[in-house]
């Protein structure tokens, strides 16, 4: 890392990756979907009418060829296909279904999924589109449930991000909020590695070995300064992760702070890491400061991993995906298109944070050198002054 500090290619790489992340992450549209479905019955004719409000849909361009099915949620069978569709505009359409004579199975209620298919928007599914009760079905119909598999669905040719209810456009926060946390863990790991190196050099110097000097500072001191700089940049990422999480939570989970297990544990982890700086500032003597803070940094990292990765997964309930029995980011949530942006985002934020840490490192390196120079110059002066006083 020390050799790279004056090179600029990786700084540009980080910036280029982030520019790509911002452009692709903001410009790729969400998959067409129908966030709003309202239903009504046309009783004497035994018809079910669904009014769709689409998002990113182009109903008018595929008006004649749009097909739709209402189907049972798990296997998408049995299903009924729509009788007619009337399109008002690109976002508004009305579907009419002939209700079958009865509800199969022995449940009194059923929540049906809606599948809409067309050549422009491709096929998409709206889970829980309409809830029907057994009494809604009247034995006057000759329409039957169809047990065949739905075939001939169109594939969407455009690049899109998955459309999820409640999350909606904020799925893009994956590249900012989630990637920030991963970058934080990478930085804290690097800080921990430097803390271990500090202690190794410390041990070597105690056994009498000479520690190599590089750029005017011995490697042990440099390890201490690297550990400090990386922890500082990592903590900034963590605080930003928490703040962005507040905002995201407000509009998806309902409040800034839901008392979620992962919110608590990350808060605790960040408090542990902020105590690192308090600890540092309480020592005047550099060697003591370096040794204690290196040990504390390793301790904080050892706590960080169970706090943010293990405990939330063990707990009974959590709002975060992948924790407390929630499904993790499955292929439906983090699909191929999102991965194409997400992984560069993690790398980009990490490189940017490393750049910030390297600036901080160079600053404290200069500071340490100046301090040492001052001490060297001051000592003889002080001795002289002392001898003057004595004589």
């Amino acid at each position, binding site marked *: 890392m020390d050799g790279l500090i004056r090179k600029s290619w990786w700084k540009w790489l980080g910036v280029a990756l982030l520019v790509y992340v*911002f452009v692709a992450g*903001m410009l790729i549209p*969400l998959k067409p979907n129908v966030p709003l479905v309202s239903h009504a019955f046309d009783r004497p004719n035994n018809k079910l009418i669904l009014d769709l409000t689409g*998002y990113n849909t182009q109903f008018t361009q595929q008006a004649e060829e749009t097909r739709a099915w209402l189907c049972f949620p798990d296997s998408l069978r049995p299903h009924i296909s729509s009788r007619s569709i009337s399109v008002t505009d690109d976002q508004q359409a009305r579907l009419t279904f002939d209700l079958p004579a009865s509800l199969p199975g022995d449940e009194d209620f059923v929540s049906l999924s809606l599948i809409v298919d067309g050549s422009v928007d491709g096929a998409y599914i709206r889970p829980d589109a309409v809830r029907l009760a057994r009494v809604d079905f009247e034995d006057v119909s000759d329409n039957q449930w169809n047990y065949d598999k739905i075939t001939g669905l169109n594939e969407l040719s455009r690049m899109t991000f998955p459309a999820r209810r409640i*999350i*909606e*456009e*904020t799925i*893009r*926060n994956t590249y*900012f*909020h989630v990637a*920030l946390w991963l970058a934080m863990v990478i930085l804290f790991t690097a800080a921990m590695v430097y803390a271990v190196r500090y202690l190794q050099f410390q041990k070597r110097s105690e056994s009498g070995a000479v520690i190599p000097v590089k750029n005017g500072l011995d490697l042990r001191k440099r390890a201490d300064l690297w550990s400090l700089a990386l922890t500082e*940049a990592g903590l*900034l990422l963590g*605080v*930003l992760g928490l*703040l*962005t999480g507040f*905002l*995201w939570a*407000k*509009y*998806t989970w309902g409040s800034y702070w839901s008392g979620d297990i992962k919110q608590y544990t990350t808060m605790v982890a960040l408090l542990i890491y902020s105590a690192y700086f308090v600890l540092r500032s309480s020592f005047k003597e550099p060697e003591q400061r370096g040794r204690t803070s290196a040990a504390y940094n390793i301790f904080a990292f050892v706590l960080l991993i169970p706090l943010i990765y293990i405990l939330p997964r063990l707990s009974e309930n959590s709002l975060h995906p992948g924790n407390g029995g929630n499904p993790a980011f499955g292929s439906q949530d983090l699909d191929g298109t999102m991965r194409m942006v997400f992984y560069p985002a993690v790398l980009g934020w990490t490189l940017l944070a490393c750049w*910030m840490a390297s*600036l*901080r490192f160079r*600053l404290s390196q*200069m*500071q340490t050198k*100046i301090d040492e120079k001052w001490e060297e110059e001051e000592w003889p002066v002080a001795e002289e002054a002392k001898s003057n006083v004595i004589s």
Partner: protein
Amino acid sequence: MPRLILTTIIFFICKLAYAQQSPDVPADFMRSLGKIYVVVGVIVIIFLGLVFYLWRLDRRLTKLEDQNH
């Protein structure tokens, strides 16, 4: 100068409050357009965090320069 900055800030706050009352903007600004402004807010927070770091670095450099002279 500080007075001018304050006036500008207040002007924009008033402007924002006014914009939220106009009928063609939905009642909840942050939830409009598929909650895209939540993403905008997240990016603004990150930007301010980076600026904060830059400002801290600036302070530290100033201290170093003062010491060196």
